[in-house]
């Protein structure tokens, strides 16, 4: 009995099983959880983390790390608001936000891949630099959105489902495809598995890593725009600590920090588990302070599970 349980939990689909069990339990035990309204709210609450997790997955899969995502999200949000206020064109605001995100990501990538500076250190530095830019640009204050059309990004609905959730779903689809079915995705996993062997096998390791970080920047730009739209302003202090939630979600989703192992389905489940835990705690009126503890414990358990799973795989 316990052997069979072990096999299920430590197998390929272990995470999905745990997710389904958790979902069923929460649905049964927490009142008002399984309602249309709450489900949409839950999904909307994970949009930022979910979007950024798409590319963080690539980063981690290539044995890299990106701590600057929270700052880029805030900065991109500021840029989107300020640029569209200044030019009167929302499209221009959005494009400049994405361009700024891509630029920061590109710089991260070049420093890490070409100058061989540890990703943790590099992104720790850019995290602070970019946050500084966001604060300077706005003088530390929130910048309100002028055009009501900008709010509509977050408020509009398609088939009764808010646009940000659609964006999230589309990005999940795109990056799932990129990871599994493109040369870029396979090279990312190969680099994470063994960087030197990948290089000697003809993979352009530096270029791939720069692309990963640039994409990460682009995606942070998109997340920043949607966040700004939802909170109806550019906030220089938005998304503080986002990097940790995103990495937690990825790890929870079975992405190996040692590189070489990642699945989109795992990351989606990881994001949802984080969302469900938070949502359920809110519904149960658990004070925010305790929620930190619960989130930490969930993460620890996930990592322990991951450890067990790798040693189970190793033994096979």
């Amino acid at each position: 009995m316990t052997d069979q349980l072990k096999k299920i939990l430590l197998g390929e689909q272990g995470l999905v099983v745990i997710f389904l069990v958790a979902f069923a339990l929460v649905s049964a035990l927490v009142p008002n959880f399984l309602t249309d309204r709450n489900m949409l709210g839950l999904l909307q609450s994970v949009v930022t983390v979910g979007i950024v997790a798409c590319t963080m997955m690539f980063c981690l899969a290539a044995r890299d790390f990106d701590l600057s995502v929270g700052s880029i999200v805030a900065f991109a949000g500021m840029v989107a608001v300020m640029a569209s206020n200044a030019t009167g064109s929302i499209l221009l605001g959005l494009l400049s936000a994405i361009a700024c995100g891509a630029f920061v990501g590109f710089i991260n990538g070049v420093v890490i891949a070409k100058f061989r500076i540890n990703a943790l250190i590099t992104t720790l530095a850019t995290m602070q630099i970019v946050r500084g830019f966001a604060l300077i640009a706005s003088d530390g204050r929130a910048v309100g959105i002028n055009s009501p059309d900008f709010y509509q990004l977050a408020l509009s609905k398609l088939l009764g489902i808010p646009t940000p959730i659609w964006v999230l779903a589309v990005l999940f689809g795109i990056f799932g495809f990129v990871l599994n079915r493109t040369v870029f995705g396979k090279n990312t996993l190969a680099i994470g598995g063994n960087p030197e062997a990948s290089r000697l096998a003809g993979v352009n390791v530096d270029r791939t890593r720069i692309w990963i970080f640039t994409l990460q920047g682009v995606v942070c730009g998109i997340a920043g725009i949607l966040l700004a739209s939802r909170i109806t302003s550019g906030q220089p202090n938005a998304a503080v600590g986002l990097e940790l939630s995103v990495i937690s979600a990825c790890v929870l989703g079975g992405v190996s920090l040692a590189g070489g192992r990642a699945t989109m389905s795992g990351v989606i489940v990881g994001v949802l588990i984080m969302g469900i835990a938070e949502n359920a705690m809110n519904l149960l009126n658990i004070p925010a302070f305790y929620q930190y503890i619960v989130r930490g414990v969930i993460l620890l358990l996930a990592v322990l599970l991951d450890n067990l799973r790798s040693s189970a795989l190793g033994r096979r």
Partner: protein
Amino acid sequence: MSFLDFSQITKTYPGVKALSDVSFGVVKGAVHGLMGENGAGKSTLIKILSGDQHADEGEISIDGKVQAYASTRDAFDNGVIVIHQELQLVPELTVAENLSLGRFPASAGIIAGRRMLEDVGAKLKSAGIDIDMRRKVKTLSIGERQMVEIAKAIMLDARVIALDEPTSSLSSRESEILFALIDRLRGEGKVIIYVSHRLDEVFRLCDSLTVLRDGKLAAHHASLKDVTRDQVVAEMVGREISDIWGFRPRKAGDVRLKVEALSGAKLRTPASFEARAGEIVGFFGLIGAGRSELMRLVFGADPRTGGAVTVDGKGIHATDPHGAIRAGIVLCSEDRKHDGIIQGRSIEENINISSRRHHTRFGVLNRASEIATAETFIKKLKVRTPSRNQDIINLSGGNQQKVILGRWLSEQGVRVLIVDEPTRGIDVGAKSEIYELLYQLAEDGMAIVVVSSELPEVMGICDRILVMCGGRINAELTRDQFAEKAILAAALPDKKTPDAIAS
């Protein structure tokens, strides 16, 4: 009555029987030699002795007591100390600190510096080791570090000390000091296991000798009095060499690969050579002779500082491997684990990683082609695996090597195949299969470069041998000129004699 006893030791790794039913004993106060070719099982036996690995069957006993170690720490505590080729010292600490590590004389956590120096000094003196204890280990020469390692064994009151190729990086003067120390330890009644492939050292130092071959006990000599060197070599090699090579003469075509005055940071002397279509060119030399460094330069894995590489008359300016691959040069690296396999990914992905660019569209994979490619090469190269989705880490060394070969053979238009130590850690059966494959590829017109440290191998399968020593190409011999002595003489730096290398 023997003091240290190995009894029916058997150890199997996935795909390879590393040791089978090995038994022998060593008496007290003896230096016991352990010899064998690469892959004969010497290291495995030493690992089992040190508690690093566990025997599947059989047991080790010391002084009649069966030893069961859970870890190297356990072996340590039982007085069994193995001194590896890579020394285990902390460079930033002094000699005295290294020797006291884990057992610092201290009160309330504060190290009693004076007492430490006194203790260590007394031990060093009694062992006749003359090293300044206050120096940091990083300032010592390799030979001195080796002394410190041995001093560590003495500090721990070791009963059994195993030395794994201790002289491989020592100068002859340093070796002499080491031998004197070993003589002293023998006088104190220790058991010394001396692993080496240098016949003259073994004959000079050892009282008794065990020869391993393909994981089995090939010979055990309780005394070396009536044993000749030729006899030991025969015991090590054991089989008729011509059996496994299956050499087939071929006709060489035009020059395919031309390397002119190539140099790099790790290969200062410019090197030049050619390889023709259909030719198998061997590169022999000792470890560190610069063969792998030269091949990495040809492949663009390391930046070159000068020289030119041409394939079929066309200059290759590749500064990175993917440029070389596009030009038709591929390299199977010496260090399969570090530079070859992509751990955690399937056989299918390991095969397709490079050649998939031939059948992708806009960066999107063609799954059908990838599956077909993987299946083709698994079949063609006889990779033993339940499925193409198997993680490559689960394959034996020989099968991993075949997958890496498959990675390159699936590339269209390979003109030059460089294989660095293609059969290291691979058992005999798989070896012949790989040789056969190389012959076929050469017959199809590829130029093949084989780098190997095994002299019988290069002599067995190559049309021409280039010998490297100290970063330069020292000699070139065609097949009719092949002679063990001449090749060894060219491979050895002046101070050593050809007898220094057994295999």
